[in-house]
């Protein structure tokens, strides 16, 4: 079972790897308050798509399960939220990995 800190570390590994390979342009320290999607996010739309695709692959490798990130599930989990923060995404991923 993955903890929130495990998932936060996985997200940071993903961001760092994508930055190193030039798939995203700016470095992003992953924290509870880091904005991943929405205004003030340093990830552009395609950067976010690339990020969640990479996170999915990492989660699959780590858990051995086929998990899929579904944006509408995020919207259902956080209705009305204008931004997706690191903490919100981590909580979602923990529940996804546990399901």
């Amino acid at each position, binding site marked *: 079972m993955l903890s929130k800190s495990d998932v936060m570390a996985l997200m940071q590994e993903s961001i760092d790897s994508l930055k190193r390979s030039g798939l995203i342009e700016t470095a992003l320290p992953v924290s509870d308050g880091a904005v991943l999607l929405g205004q003030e996010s340093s990830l552009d739309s395609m950067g976010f798509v690339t990020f969640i695709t990479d996170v999915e692959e990492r989660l699959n490798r780590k858990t051995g399960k*086929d998990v899929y990130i579904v944006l509408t599930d995020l919207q259902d989990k956080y209705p009305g939220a204008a931004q997706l923060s690191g903490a919100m995404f981590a909580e979602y991923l923990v529940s996804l990995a546990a399901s």
Partner: protein
Amino acid sequence: MSTSNVMVITGTSRGIGRGMAEFFATHGWTVIGCSRGESTLGDLSGYHHSRVDVSDEKQVRDWARGVKREHGRVDALVCNVGLVERGALTGVTTLESFQAFVNSILTTTFLVCREYSKLMGLQRYGRIVNLTSIMTELHAPGTPAYASAKAAVVEFTKVLAREVANQGITCNVVSPSLVSTEASMAFGDQWKANMLAMQTLQRPIDVAELCNIVQFFTAPQSGCVTGQVLHTCLVN
């Protein structure tokens, strides 16, 4: 992991998809084909078959992930989907029939392109070729569902081409005229004559002629060509 370039082709049980799978497997590609049923290509070297219903979101996701896991990467995707069924005039086209065309042509293209373009994005390289039809240009009576769904694929391809342009991925459209396949010939001589009468070059083409175009679009050297539509046998 595959050592040769990997090409995914949908709808390889018959017709254009089957011919393309044969062509590219014998031209040095590792070809991953799919259809709802078993492979019709026997033990063709370089060909791998998956049973997938490409209108099923979960099946497409699982398939794409499995291909990535097994072969390591996907260099090219040829999305060849369709519904081999006669159309009808708008006034007598049922909602079920219209939706069946949209689902089997547009929705499947969207699902397959979505999954594989994401994988290509991570590898910063990819060639996507979607197959449509010159019927998108002819506005022929009796094709309200088929031609509209194929035209929507053209638009979808252009939108995707812009979205992934900075990831080394190109997306183009091959728009065939009448192709000599069992399915198209089964519609009969009158239908075939009507089709040819609408074309500029009034002859059926072979799948090999389409493969030549796909080969161009999927070449690494074609990285500057994206969002384009290439019709055969038609001046439009």
